[in-house]
């Protein structure tokens, strides 16, 4: 067992996969000598050479398109889009092409490609470099979507994504790259599609993913002093969603808060809240509360940015409200 930073765990996954399978290669902007905008691919150029660690021209659409074409004829590309915001330039290639090729052509092609990108706030990067766009991808049939929160998950799930024969959107978080965590020395792969209970609790379930996991764990810890035992479930995979795990936890605690950094309106929290509200109608002791970013473009000033996204205060208040909830006397049948 060793400590890895999130970025190093990702690099280890890339390294092992490239060693094991000649068909795996990396392409993207500044992934070579620069080592990636967030240093994930540092050293891979020296190890694997320019052929397999390809610096591309600054052209997001063709990065995805070329990865897709290569995947259709036998390659296993891991393409990088530097910021998820720039995926907006490649949405046709991701959504109309990569996601649909397998089904639309009646199963004639496989599309084993991974699209690594990173999203989120924390650097005062402004409205065009800080978005969290997972719900766009979750809405698209044919894609898989992963958003790891820990070095261990980042490692195990990136390997799984590379093994998968479908287009996988792999969402890292710019605020996590330096975060450290334990990763086993023995190589392993984590299954796609499994959420994980990251903290056991009895009274309330906080469902979250990516960088917000840290906030959830921190608040959960603080809440013990108020006698609240919070369970924290980390989705890890956003598509397909592991409703079995979510439902089990929510059935136990009967109180749910869904937390993410993406805009609340139309965010993934809506999907989860809607589904659990339906499945657990009559079981829940309180309405499910969603916490996400306000409906505002993200300001560049780091202090202002913080006002837009969820923080400990808002999460604590939400949990408290859910704990405190008293059913109204219903005025009907």
């Amino acid at each position, binding site marked *: 067992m060793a400590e890895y930073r999130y970025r190093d765990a990702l690099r280890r996954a890339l390294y092992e996969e490239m060693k094991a399978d000649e*068909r795996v*290669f990396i392409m993207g902007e500044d992934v070579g000598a620069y080592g990636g905008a967030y240093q994930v691919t540092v050293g891979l150029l020296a190890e694997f050479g320019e*052929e*397999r660690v*390809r610096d*591309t*021209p600054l*052209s997001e*659409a*063709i990065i*995805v*398109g*070329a*990865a*897709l*074409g*290569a*995947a*259709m*004829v*036998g*390659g296993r*590309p891991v393409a990088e889009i530097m910021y998820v915001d720039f995926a907006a330039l490649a949405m*046709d*290639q991701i959504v*109309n*092409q990569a996601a649909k*090729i*397998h*089904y*639309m*052509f*009646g*199963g*004639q*092609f*496989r*599309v*084993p490609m991974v699209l690594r990108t990173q999203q989120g706030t924390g650097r005062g990067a402004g409205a065009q470099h800080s978005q969290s766009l997972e719900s766009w991808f979750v809405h698209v*049939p*044919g894609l*898989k979507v992963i958003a790891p929160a820990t070095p261990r998950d980042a490692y195990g799930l990136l390997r799984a994504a590379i093994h998968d*024969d*479908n287009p996988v959107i792999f969402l890292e978080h710019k605020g996590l790259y330096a975060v450290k965590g334990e990763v086993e020395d023995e190589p392993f792969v984590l299954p796609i599609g499994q959420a994980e209970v990251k903290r056991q609790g009895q009274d309330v379930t906080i469902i979250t993913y990516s960088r917000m996991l840290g906030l959830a764990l921190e608040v959960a810890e603080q809440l013990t002093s108020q006698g609240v035992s919070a369970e924290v479930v980390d989705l890890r995979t956003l598509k397909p969603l592991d409703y079995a795990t979510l439902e089990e936890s929510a059935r136990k605690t009967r109180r749910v808060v869904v937390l993410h950094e993406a805009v609340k309106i139309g965010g993934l929290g809506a999907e989860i809240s809607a589904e659990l509200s339906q499945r657990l109608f009559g079981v829940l002791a309180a309405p499910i509360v969603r916490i996400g970013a306000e409906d505002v473009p993200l300001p560049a000033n780091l202090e202002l940015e913080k006002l837009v996204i969820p923080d400990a205060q808002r999460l604590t208040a939400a949990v408290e409200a859910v704990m405190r909830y008293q059913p109204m006397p219903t005025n009907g049948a």
Partner: protein
Amino acid sequence: MVQDAQAILKLYRDMLIIRRAEERILEELMQGKLASTMCHVSIGQEAVAVGVCSVMAEQDYLTSTHRGHGHFLARGGDVKRMMAELFGKETGYCRGRGGSMHITDAKIGHLGANGIVGGHIGIAVGAALWSKMSRRPAVTVCFFGDGGLTQGIFHEAANMASVWKLPVVFVCENNQYAMSLPWNKAAGQTSIQAYASSYAMPGLDVDGQDVLAVQQAAYEAIERARGGGGPSLIGAYTYRFLGHSRGDPSKYRDPEEEKRERARDPLLILRSKYPDVLDDRTTAQAETEVKAMMDDAVAFAEASPIAGASAVFSEIYA
């Protein structure tokens, strides 16, 4: 290229197959037999598809457009399973999920007809990239229209192919219109080959109604790519004889222009060049054979089952 009688006849016959297949498709469409409303025929443009595909090797790839029946058939796709696809049947190439606009056969290196104008150009570059990386002598041909050329991704693709010297041949079928938009309102200039210079690749404008001219240009570009010489751009000037799609009366076109252009029928042009090879008896026999092919194809399509609900919900993921 040396042309013997057999080769000429094959070119003629391949063009005839496309022509008669699309005429038949239109007939079936009128009778409500097609399972989708989307259908674009390439009547008048057969020489481009046939000229290019005639010099492709077995291991080569191609990507195609919404107007893709010609590329598909010229590459050797089975007209039966194509017709079944258009009829929306389970025996169709895409199990009825694709229809005319997505006709594809992976087995012959056909990487898909695509409904997004320009959307497949990236796929072509990617296929060429992997061919090069895996050291296979495969060349990828990327067909696209004059409309595709004004999409940003063409330029990103041409640039990447150029920098990485990828074995891809870009074939722009300039049929003078993107839907109703004439080329002179789509671009600031008339040439296609001029775009090649931005990407430091060879560019060549050819008469797309002359199958031999197309063949020669494609042969050179493909062999160049195969030899490691990188990409090329061919501008094949052609004309779609009919409307953009069913129900388009092409009111935006000058009837005089249509008449003039229709006279430049690639089938007639080839016949006039080789009257001895393509004499009346030979062409009549070809007609008979091709007619039978089409009857068979329609019969096959009609007899085929449609997918059931369970099939629709299968193969979403590999």
